[in-house]
């Protein structure tokens, strides 16, 4: 079985990527999800993962070259496939390949909006099928693009929704009473889409909001995945929260964003600029201050859900990076044995970006079991 290893599309605006290096030799066996090559895009770096098991028979991409989304980077096949067959596969592909036009919006999914209690929510949906739907919830100051390495991978047999929380992305910047309004809007979102029950996966503040929904509407939640989540302990790095709120220039914002990752070099100038553009939208400053004052005042987390979650009958998966500089990994370690906890080494506050392959695998298996 011959499978294409192509340049992936991470997020909505990616059109090309530069191959920085190969992580696997030609002839090596690979499994689904293994990182095969490192790629740099305008926004962030990531790993191209094996889409199928087999042997990496061809490494076609040259290190240092830029390739459009969809281009053939390599070929995975079985031992039994002949070189001639693989050559033919490559030749056929290259003859027919036309790079996606940057302006060709119709090629990929477009974001949509839903009106919930008079406020607009932007979302993106990948995947369809009979599986129980899932909703991905980003963290403080983020948006649905944070799931760029996960969204498609998770959408195998079910629709997966990634949301811009109120106050974030292109959703309404009116956060009402803060956490309560945000959590209510999540339930409202499920109602608006006619979804009875969904898997919820939340990162950081998104995890706390998902936990709040579990505590108030447990019947609507099929499972709960908490990634480096808020609401599981009483500390938070105030340098991150206060720094994020206060930073209004590149120089101030960069060190704040570096706290999100174990490897600070992941913070590109483009990433910093995107965050600043978001912060300069009318209403964002007010929204962030309201949420920070309520959920993360002066380095504390007054709202903790551990007890509620313990008592809940919803299956819970907790994923944390060992070197998280924002939410202490100690919060994960001190959870009771009733929680399934995965702590990833050499990983910071953003496991879903830093160790996307592992996180995708963990969540996919978790959802299938739940």
């Amino acid at each position, binding site marked *: 079985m011959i499978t294409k290893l192509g340049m992936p599309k991470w997020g909505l605006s990616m059109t090309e990527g530069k191959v920085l290096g190969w992580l696997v030799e030609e002839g090596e066996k690979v499994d689904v999800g293994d990182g095969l090559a490192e790629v740099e895009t305008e926004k962030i770096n990531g790993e191209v993962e094996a889409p199928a098991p087999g042997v990496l028979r061809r490494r076609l991409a040259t290190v240092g070259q830029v390739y459009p989304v969809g281009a053939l980077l390599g070929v995975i096949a079985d031992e039994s496939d002949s070189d001639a067959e693989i050559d033919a596969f490559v030749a056929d592909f290259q003859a027919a390949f036309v790079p996606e036009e940057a302006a060709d919006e119709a090629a990929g999914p477009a974001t949509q909006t839903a009106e919930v209690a008079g406020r607009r929510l932007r979302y993106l949906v990948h995947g369809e099928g009979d599986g129980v739907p899932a909703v991905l919830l980003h963290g403080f100051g983020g948006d649905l693009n944070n799931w760029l390495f996960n969204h498609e991978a998770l959408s195998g047999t079910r629709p997966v929704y990634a949301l811009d929380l109120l106050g974030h992305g*292109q959703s309404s910047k009116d956060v009402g009473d803060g956490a309560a309004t945000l959590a209510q809007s999540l339930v409202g979102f499920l109602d608006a889409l006619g979804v009875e029950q969904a898997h919820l996966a939340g990162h950081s503040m998104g995890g706390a909001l998902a936990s709040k929904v579990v505590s108030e509407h447990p019947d609507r939640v099929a499972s709960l995945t908490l990634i480096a989540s808020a609401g599981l302990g009483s500390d938070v790095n105030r340098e991150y929260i206060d720094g994020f709120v206060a930073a209004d220039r590149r120089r101030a914002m960069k060190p704040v964003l570096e706290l999100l990752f174990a490897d600070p070099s992941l913070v590109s100038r483009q990433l910093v*600029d995107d965050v600043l553009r978001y912060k300069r939208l*009318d209403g964002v400053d007010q929204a962030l201050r309201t949420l920070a004052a309520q959920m993360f005042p002066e380095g504390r987390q007054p709202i903790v859900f551990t007890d509620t979650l313990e008592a809940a009958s919803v299956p819970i998966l907790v994923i944390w990076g060992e070197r998280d500089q924002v939410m202490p990994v100690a919060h994960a370690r001190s959870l009771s044995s009733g929680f399934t906890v995965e702590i990833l080494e050499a990983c910071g506050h953003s496991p879903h970006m830093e160790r996307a392959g592992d996180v995708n695998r963990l969540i996919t298996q978790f959802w299938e079991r739940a």
Partner: protein
Amino acid sequence: MARKITYMQAINEALEQEMRRDPTVVVFGEDNVGGFGSPGELDAWGGVLGVTKGLYGKFPDQILDTPISESAFIGAAVGAAASGLRPVAELMFVDFMGVCFDQIFNQAAKLRYMFGGKAKIPMVIRTMWGAGIRAASQHSQSLYPIFTHIPGLKVAIPSNAYDAKGLMIQAIRDDDPVMFFENKVLYATEAEVPEEPYTVPFGEASFVREGDDVTIVAIGRMVHLAEQAADQLASRDISCEIVDPRTTSPLDEESIYESVEKTGRLVVADESNPRCSLASDIAALVAQNCFEWLRSPVKMVTAPHTPPPFSPVLEDLYVPSSERIAEAARDAVTGKAGKVGAR
């Protein structure tokens, strides 16, 4: 993704959103509405090229036509700003600055200082600049260096629709007099622009492209030509970093120095005439403040020391081209000193 609109629509939207938010924002200029007193349609023009079209219907009390009396109505903007309004006045073509320059450089720019900080002049003057549409000498100049030179004035020069909307909203909310330069050729260019109001701060340059071998600081329309030059050079293994200052006063010097420190080489692409241009200003700042990082002499790519000509073949030679910018970048990398090309 945000929807795409043109540079012109972005400015119109910025004006609309600010006029809605703040009833003291008042827009006026020649034919900004168009048709006042005339028998036919009102809002006939909405500005000579249509930038302010539609605003009269939405805010009839906040937008006016003026007679062709720049000295009077630009001066009126100063007085209005000092006494409670936030005017956005239009100096249709920056080439017309001669008939009202006193009101700008001696009144608007200096009242706050001369009155010991007691006056506030929150006004914006929108004005068109740039050659390329064959409008000849008195409608094609790039006079922003003259305004950059004047203490008390701020100068914004957006190169794209996103920056145009954000800088305009910032300019209106800013409490100082702002000269807002709109490039005529860029009016039709599109970019992703958020529907919500947002600001772009003054004094923050944008890194349009990252690179290692040479820094190109490009003003306004030159940003797009610098990108073309960078594309040409990528195939010759020269990677260019393109810095768009967005505002020349205040100027984000730190970002320019940061970039020169990394690349060691500087090209400035500036459509104004060479003497006392932004190119010479930025070149001197770099020479003074990060000389030790320079590996080769600074290159300046500007228009020649002539008025803008009418005939298309001559005007095309007048405006700096992507080829000249690329040549300058190559010269910077090879260390070739002196003026770019034979000129």
